[in-house]
Every structure is written in structure tokens, then in C-alpha cells.
């Protein structure tokens, strides 16, 4: 009897490992920035370039930093989700316009609506490197102390909002 049980158990274990492996997304590289302070920057605002914005301005608030671009295809998929979130007024969304031109970014926001309190331009992608951005869109949840608590790689979906981002935001806001 043992003769059959042992290979069967080994087969099941192997099958489970391979099945889980199939469902892992190799594009989702865990960020080393989780639980670390959000890298500082001072960048011109997209709509009013003479004004700047810096994460330090957000001290004491829980906020989302959404990396987007007018050339980014998945951002289109994410856009309505962000618009709906912005209307609910739960958490402020700030945009980092990554490797984009202000003219095209403005046109894109005019067409699809602007879910952001404000956006800043990272035209050369340097701040993106500091944040470990490698696939736009990406979204960071930053707490009251300016610590990155979560990073969503790829578009924010209704599922990821409901299951991960909003519960986390509520928890951080209560602190």
C-alpha cells in the first residue's frame, strides 16, 4: 500500500507547487520600499508649473501616489476606477506624471477627467527610479508619517481597492 501512497503524495505536493507557480505573476516584483519612508522630491505641478509639490507636504495624511502617463495603455483601464474613488472622497489621490509631456498629459486629463488633487511632472523619469517604478501604472499607499505601506503594481482594479487598498487606508487613517 505504502508503495502507492508515497509517490502519490509526492505527485500532489509537486502539482500544488507548480499550480501555485503558474498563478504567480513574474512581473510583480516585491518592492523593497514597503515600510520605508517615501523618497523625497520636489517637482513642479502639472497644472501650475510655478508651484511645486513634495511628499513632505502630506505629513499627517494618508494618501495615494499614482504613477501614470498619457502614453500608458493600462492607465486607461485604471482611470474610471480612480475617477470613482476620487468622487467618494475617502483618500486623496496625487498623480506622478511619468515621462510625459505636460501638453499631452493635460489633454489626456481633459478628455477622461482628472481624479487627482494635483499631479506633478516627472518628465525624465528620475523620481520614478527613486520609487522603483518599472511598469506604469503603479500606486503607492503612504501613511501619516510618510511611510510607504503598500505598492500596487499595474492598474488599480475594483477588486484590489476593495480587498487591499481601502481596508489598509481605513486602518492607517484610524491610527
Amino acid at each position, binding site marked *: 500500500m505504502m508503495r502507492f501512497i508515497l509517490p502519490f503524495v509526492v505527485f500532489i505536493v509537486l502539482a500544488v507547487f507548480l499550480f501555485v507557480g503558474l498563478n504567480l505573476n*513574474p512581473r510583480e516584483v516585491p*518592492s*523593497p*520600499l514597503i515600510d520605508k519612508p517615501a523618497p523625497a522630491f520636489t517637482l513642479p505641478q502639472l497644472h501650475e508649473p510655478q508651484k511645486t509639490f513634495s511628499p513632505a507636504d502630506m505629513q499627517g495624511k494618508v494618501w495615494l501616489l499614482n504613477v501614470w502617463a498619457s502614453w500608458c495603455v493600462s492607465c486607461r483601464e485604471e482611470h474610471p476606477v480612480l475617477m470613482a474613488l476620487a468622487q467618494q472622497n475617502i483618500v486623496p489621490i496625487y498623480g506622478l506624471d511619468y*515621462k510625459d509631456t505636460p501638453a499631452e498629459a493635460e489633454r489626456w486629463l481633459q478628455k477622461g477627467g482628472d481624479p487627482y488633487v494635483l499631479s506633478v511632472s516627472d518628465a525624465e*523619469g528620475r523620481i520614478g*527610479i527613486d*520609487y*522603483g517604478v518599472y*511598469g506604469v501604472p503603479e500606486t503607492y499607499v503612504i501613511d501619516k508619517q510618510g511611510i510607504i505601506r503598500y505598492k500596487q503594481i499595474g492598474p488599480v482594479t475594483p477588486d484590489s481597492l476593495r480587498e487591499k487598498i481601502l481596508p489598509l487606508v481605513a486602518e492607517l487613517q484610524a491610527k
Partner: protein
Amino acid sequence: MKRLLILMLCLLPSLAFAGEAQDMAADPVLEKRMIGLAEKLRCLVCQNESLASSHAELAEDLRREVRELMQQGMSDQEILDYLVARYGDFVLYDPPMKKTTLVLWYGPFALLLLGAGVLVFQLRKRKSEIAEPQLTDEQAAQAAALLAEQPATSTQTKDPQA
């Protein structure tokens, strides 16, 4: 007119290359050092390519970043640490040995040992199964008697024709 057009078209590629070559010419030693380091780094966009060979926009930006950090006088190790702090160990083709990478480094050897152990166990088990049974004196005598009998019986069955 047509010939002039063809000539102009032929010259187009050289114009396209001019932009890229400029950077290289700026400081060939630094460029060589940068490419050497970039070969040890993974491009996060196209994950099976090194940062040196990738044409992804992010790879170009990161090469620019590495070039600038080198100009600022950072050592290769400092630059690797700088990138790991942003992108994680995944960016290295040769990940360091630490708690989270123990399975990565020792897992294959552990599996090899496990496999060898199972093999040895199975071989021993089989050896004990096929070992010759020890005969008692009585059984040995019986066997000898049977063997002695055999030639006679076999000649009996064969002989009728002879």
C-alpha cells in the same frame, strides 16, 4: 532627382545612429565600465534581458542613471546598493546569500540530498528483498536430493527417441 532622393534615403540611417554614438564617445572608459556593470543587472521590463542589452525605455533611463552615478564618483558596489534599495534583489543576476534567499541557494542541494537518500534507501530495501534465503540443513539435504534426481528424470523424457 530620383538619384538624389535615393542617396538621401541611404544617408538616413547614419543620421539615426549619430545620436546614440555621441554618448559613447563622451567617455569611452566610463561607458565600458557602465556596460560591464549593467551586464550584471536585470532589466525589470523585459526580465530575461540584462540592463546592458535591453532597449526598454526604463533600461535606457537606468543606464543614464548608472552613468551619472559613476561620474559622481560612486563605486560599482555603491551603485549596486543604490539600485537594490529601489528595485530589490531581483535586479541582480547574482543575488546575495541571506535569509530570504537561502532556499534559492541551498534548495537544489537539499533536493539532491533528499533524492540520493531515497535512492540509497530503496536500493538497500531491494537488496534485503532479493537476498538468498538461508536454508536449514534439512532443506539443503532435500534440495541436494532433488538435484541428484533431476538428471535421471530429464534423460527419461529425452531418451525415447535415442
